[in-house]
């Protein structure tokens, strides 16, 4: 099956529809909430939470004995939340830094989860197979009911975000100010964090514990490059997330032996890469171009100011001078001279140049930022 076939099958094949919808919704909700995580500098919280959710899944299975994904995800949610609040406890109550706290919770919970998983595997219970799909995720195991659950959670998220938009926004950018305004920052903080945990837990089944953090981060990091407005960033991140979900599913479905999770993550990584390089405001490419242009302008102005120093000593500012006297001056080339002429700063006659009135005032005010600004 190639990608075109995939898209034509999409309208008829029930399983493909389910999976595609699932990954699209997941990408959207992760992008939306990931924006908050990225802006709050909690990018790696997602990584820690997704690992911390593993023992919850195992314990939920041990206690209930069912493999119903809702029950298991509930367990994941509880242990994810415990992990999150323990991280917070470590950071606020001890002198350990947040990176240490994140790494600790991540590895300790995950190790404990692995202990439980291997313990379950040794149990004489035929029902246990398939729990390890939560490690790397298997989009193929998504059911319609799972997709509905995701959609419901996404809708709730969206409602909460819209309802608390002002509070979320102000907390993101100035937590202290929020406090002085009398908002309950603790409550808002816990609300955002809980929803991030919820989104991560939802993604475990599809993308898996290990790669979940990238689902959260990548769309948001990409969206950040294109805009400085929170609203646009969240919408963009949701779009990027959904796009990576759909395209990743399409690529993995059209090849053998490609699991969906890693492909989605790689697609998202490519989106990030493109945003890093090509975004007009912050991208590396345009920044480099601007940098080059500034450097060129600077050299041009250097030549201009040199000319100004010569012309200053003459009564008539447009008194012609030999081009030769510029020759051993840095930054002077034939091209830059022509550029100066194009800008109408000098006039060239034969082998002589002379400053124009315009060039003279420009050079005189070169270091006077304010007049330049008003002239422009």
């Amino acid at each position, binding site marked *: 099956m190639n990608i075109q076939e995939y898209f034509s099958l999409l309208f008829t094949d029930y399983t493909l529809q389910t999976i595609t919808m699932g990954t699209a919704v997941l990408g959207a909700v992760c992008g939306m909430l990931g924006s908050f995580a*990225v802006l709050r*500098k*909690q*990018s*790696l919280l*997602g*990584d820690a939470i997704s*690992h911390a959710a593993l023992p919850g899944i195992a314990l939920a299975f041990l206690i209930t004995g069912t493999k119903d994904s809702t029950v298991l995800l509930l367990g994941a949610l509880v242990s994810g939340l415990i992990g999150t609040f323990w991280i917070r*406890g*470590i950071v606020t*109550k*001890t*002198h*350990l*830094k947040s*990176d*240490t706290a*994140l*790494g*600790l919770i*991540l*590895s*300790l*919970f*995950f*190790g*404990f*989860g*692995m*202990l*439980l*998983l*291997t*313990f379950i595997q*040794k149990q004489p219970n035929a029902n246990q197979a398939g729990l*390890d799909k939560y*490690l*790397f995720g298997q989009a193929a195991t998504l059911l319609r009911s799972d997709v509905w659950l995701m959609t419901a959670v996404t809708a709730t998220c969206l409602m909460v975000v819209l309802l608390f938009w002002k509070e979320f926004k102000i907390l993101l950018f100035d937590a202290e100010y929020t406090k002085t305004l009398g908002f309950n920052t603790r409550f808002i903080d816990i609300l955002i964090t809980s929803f991030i945990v919820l989104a991560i837990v939802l993604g475990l089944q599809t993308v898996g514990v*290990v*790669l979940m*953090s*990238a689902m959260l*981060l*990548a769309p948001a*990091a990409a969206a*950040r*490059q294109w805009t400085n407005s929170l609203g646009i960033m969240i919408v963009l991140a949701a779009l990027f997330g959904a796009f990576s979900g759909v395209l990743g599913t399409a690529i993995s479905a059209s090849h053998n*032996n*490609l*699991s969906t*999770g*890693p*492909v989605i*993550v*790689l697609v998202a*990584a490519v989106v*990030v890469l493109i945003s*890093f390089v090509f975004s007009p405001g*912050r991208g*590396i490419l345009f920044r480099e171009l601007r940098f080059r242009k500034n450097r060129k302008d600077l050299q041009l102005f250097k030549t201009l100011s040199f000319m100004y120093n010569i012309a200053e000593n003459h009564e008539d500012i447009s008194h012609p001078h030999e081009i030769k006297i510029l020759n051993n001056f840095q930054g002077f080339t034939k091209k830059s001279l022509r550029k100066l002429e194009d800008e109408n700063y000098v006039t060239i006659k034969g082998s002589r140049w002379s400053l124009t009135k315009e060039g003279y005032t420009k050079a005189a005010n070169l270091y006077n930022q304010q007049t330049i600004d008003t002239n422009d």
Partner: protein
Amino acid sequence: MTSAQLEIQMIASFVAVACAIPGTFLVLRKMALISDAISHSILPGIVIGFFITQDLSSPINILLAALSGVITVILVEFIQKTRLVKEDTAIGLVFPALFSIGVIMIAQNANDVHLDVDAVLLGELAFAPFDRWILGTTDLGPKSLWVIGIILLFTITLLITFFKELKVSTFDVGLASALGFSPVVLHYGLMSVASITTVGAFDAVGAILVVALMIAPAATAYLLTTDLKKMLVLACVFGVFSAVMGYWIAHWLDASISGSMTTVLGLVFLGVYLFAPDKGLFSVLYRQRQQQTEVSLLVFLLHLQNHTETSERHRNHLQEHINWGSVKSEKVLKLALDNNMISVDNEVISLTEKGYNFTTGALEYITMNKTSELENIKEDFFLFRG
């Protein structure tokens, strides 16, 4: 105890010590999460190395994987330098991408390669004694024991040689570069050691346990001491303890050794986190409570000192004036009485001489903020002990 069991415990302990040493520095340099990133992103290096050598523990494989660990660090730093995203986001972007590449490479060649993601991520210590290094006809012991032993020796040598440099550059980068130790060289040196250790250890214990073994013992030790040498020793002790305990618990539960080692590490950390004498949760909470009571007492005494008129010092008036609940004001009142700071005469409260002197001292300290004023009240009060 059979020789295989002994060998497993030896490998686990070696790994624990080899991880604890770089781990301590990573925790102190606030770079703990780099170990997580490295442990995931060595996967493509391992896979490529495995395709070339067909052997997980060959030196080429280890070098290739360590190289991909260092590349991760460089990539993360490059993204940071563009200042497009924050440092932690950079880490979070790089390692899942590299890990995904590794997973896909494994999946694409799943048919002819004897290597799966679970093994890389989780390791299987129980099988380590079966992969032996046989030279001619003599059995030299398990390969992983040799690999991790050499890495451990290498790490310890580097630690002893560059201890001073590492110490200075960890705590004061500016001073280190002023003294002529290049922080960049030390940084990349540490990163290389961390990568090599991760690679050497993952084969035995898996990538995630490496992270746990690097961070958890160091973090636990950091809660107990602020002396670098003590911290290193304590971290090694915790690591080895969990390695051995973890083995026996796994043996008893018949479950994954690396999982149970991590669990023991977690329990040790939890215990220290709750009960550490100075920085544990309980002592921090106790101290905060104590300070809160003392601040209340101080406010109360200052109030008394400010008001000489009887109506202001009436027991019932105080309650509404300072705006405390009745329980709290009774508590503070009792504390002040017990310390002979105040005397109550017909429901009217007045400062005793001791109380007056104390309040004056505290006031002087508060207004002048000089430590010399502090000396005589330090002993009575937690609050002023700094």
